[in-house]
């Protein structure tokens, strides 16, 4: 029994290694069929390897194969970003002309300097987006906090209607609000200004945030709140002392979502920007314009734009994953 497992594993490993070597060897010859043979061979070889290793020790094969496959998954997820954005930003002008390559022969960070030198609107766009996204995240979360609690836990006339209204509005595509929204902001003389951006984004993002928070409040046991009332809390005191502390993770996650939505938002930011308030997303699109496109600078801009949101996602990953999961498993 052990012998046949070892044979299997050996055979599998052999197939994987040999075919990979063959594929690597044909690099110079462009013989297309080798690739497909390699692909098929990988499947066969890995299954044999997996099965064999499983026979040797429980689940060892599954783990090894899963690990290898996970490498592929992670590469798919990571490589585009790493290669294009991270490494791409390090290319120098000379390298650009030398054709396609994996790692720039003469890496430089000069483009980062150019990016922030004041010749482009990028620094201002970055700052604007930071200000607006933070403000929107804080403001919408706080409004939603109160409103969602009322919707979730207070019985009042018209509650059902309002609940349905919120449900409907959060699903609306932003474009339907854009023209009138800009019109309102124009009459308030807030177009192309940071407060205008802030208001517009809040309008677009608030319904979604409220909906998220309603869900969060609904998961709090009503009895806990009732207990606080009976113990002597007024409704507001019960809210402050008992309900809120229990929902802090959800509140934080919601704030991150709101930040993300505002930071990544393209259409409204573009429409509102005439000359005074560049925002990140439209600026990047402008960098993509083939006329004045400088690839490494675009990559550098991309990297800098991604860092805040990636950091936030990383910091909050446990809560974000839980939030996404809860939303779908229920």
């Amino acid at each position, binding site marked *: 029994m052990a012998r046949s497992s070892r044979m299997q594993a050996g055979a599998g490993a052999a197939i994987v290694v040999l075919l990979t070597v063959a594929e690597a060897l044909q690099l110079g010859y462009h013989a297309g069929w080798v690739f497909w043979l390699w692909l098929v061979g990988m499947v066969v070889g890995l299954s044999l390897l997996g099965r064999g290793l499983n026979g040797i020790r429980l689940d060892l094969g599954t783990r090894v194969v899963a690990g290898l496959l996970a490498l592929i998954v992670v590469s798919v997820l990571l490589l585009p970003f790493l290669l294009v954005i991270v490494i791409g930003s390090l290319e120098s002008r000379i390298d650009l002309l030398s054709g396609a390559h994996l790692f720039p022969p003469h890496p430089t960070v000069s483009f980062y300097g150019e990016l922030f030198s004041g010749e482009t609107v990028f620094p201002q766009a970055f700052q604007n987006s930071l200000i607006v996204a933070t403000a929107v995240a804080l403001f919408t979360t706080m409004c939603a906090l109160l409103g969602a609690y009322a919707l979730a836990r207070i019985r009042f006339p018209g509650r059902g209607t309002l609940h349905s209204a919120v449900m409907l509005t959060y699903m609306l595509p932003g474009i339907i609000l854009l023209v009138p929204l800009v019109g309102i902001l124009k009459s308030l003389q807030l177009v192309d200004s940071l407060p205008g951006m802030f208001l517009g984004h809040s309008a677009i993002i608030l319904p979604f945030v409220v909906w998220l928070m309603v869900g969060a409040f609904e998961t709090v046991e009503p*009895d806990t709140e009732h207990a606080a009332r*009976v113990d002597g809390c007024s409704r507001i005191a019960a809210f402050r002392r008992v309900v809120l*502390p229990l929902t802090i993770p959800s509140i934080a996650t919601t704030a991150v979502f709101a930040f993300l939505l505002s930071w990544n938002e393209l259409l409204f930011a573009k429409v509102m920007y005439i000359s005074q308030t560049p925002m990140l997303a439209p600026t990047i699109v402008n960098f993509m314009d083939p006329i004045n496109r400088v690839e490494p600078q675009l990559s550098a801009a991309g990297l800098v734009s991604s860092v805040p949101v990636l950091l936030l996602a990383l910091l909050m990953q446990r809560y974000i994953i839980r939030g996404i999961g809860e939303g779908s498993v229920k």
Partner: protein
Amino acid sequence: MASVRLERLSKTYRGGVPALADLTVTIPNGEFVCILGPSGSGKSTALKLLAGIEEATSGRIFFDDEEVTLTTPERRDVAMVFQSYGLYPQMTVAENIAFPLMLRKMPKAERARRVEEVCKLLGIGKLLRRYPRQLSGGERQRVALGRAIVRNPREPLSNLDANLRVSMRQELRRLHEILGATFIYVTHDQDDALAMGDRVLVLNEGRLQQYDAATRVYQYPANRFVASFLGRLPMNFFVGTLHTRGEIVMFENADLRLAVPSGKPPAAGTATLGVRPDAIVVRAAHPGDEALAGTVRWLELVQPDLYATVEVGSHRIIAKVPEGEPIEVGHAARLHFAPSKLHLFDPTTGVRLNPPPEEATPAGRRQREALA
């Protein structure tokens, strides 16, 4: 510390179905009352109305003659133990119990003293630093109780809705004795209710069925529902007619004829007769035994007694087998009815027809009439 009076208390939720209808009852100060009823009977609703978590649709609530119908819960000075305990997950046990005191701005030292008192009372001293999620169900129950009694409120309420272990029942009664406050306890378990309550309030479908001392609710059920709800084994019911033979009222149907003594049952009309299985004794058939005859179909041990299902005509009657009696399935047997434990009910309304002894109290009579 206060008596509770309910006056025509009703609650209907959106959607129309009344959860509680016209409940009128007075609970004297210091009593331990159990509210008993099946699910959906309105007992949880009654508790919520008493605590102030819900607002009544109509009717009034009085604590010691002070109307509290519309008062918000935090001003009512009740305490409540919830079905799910309602412990604050983010606080330690000590903080949980101290919470009501902290809200009333009691100084720290005093708070600690009270918490310690309560813990000694309930035996949870070593749990003080733990969090609710680290506790077992029983421990959580005690913490919830502790929080409820720590401020000696007017009314401790409880909606534990679970079979309490015998030890927990004794604890609750002991607490009641020590505190002397009015306890209201909600349950669907009749063993709990009969074991703990001074009085039992039976609810069904939002309506009061009977409010009486525990023993009387069991021995003299006010209507058919109460009769069938209480008692571990189902009550035997027979439909038949009443007629008088001389001084005695007789109950008769196709298969049996019984005398219903005393209690002043009505002289004529149709009635439903109810008899508990432990009020009927099965004996092996003897010549000369004139009691009701039937065939034994089934024997069942319901600790600590043996019960037989006896077929009499179209009836299947469950009756108790006295110890040592030679009863076997398939054999003939005779059923002896205990005459003082026969209950008569109106076949349509289910209301009790033969009033129990001492049925002189105007309150009891009024109650019965109110149920008709």
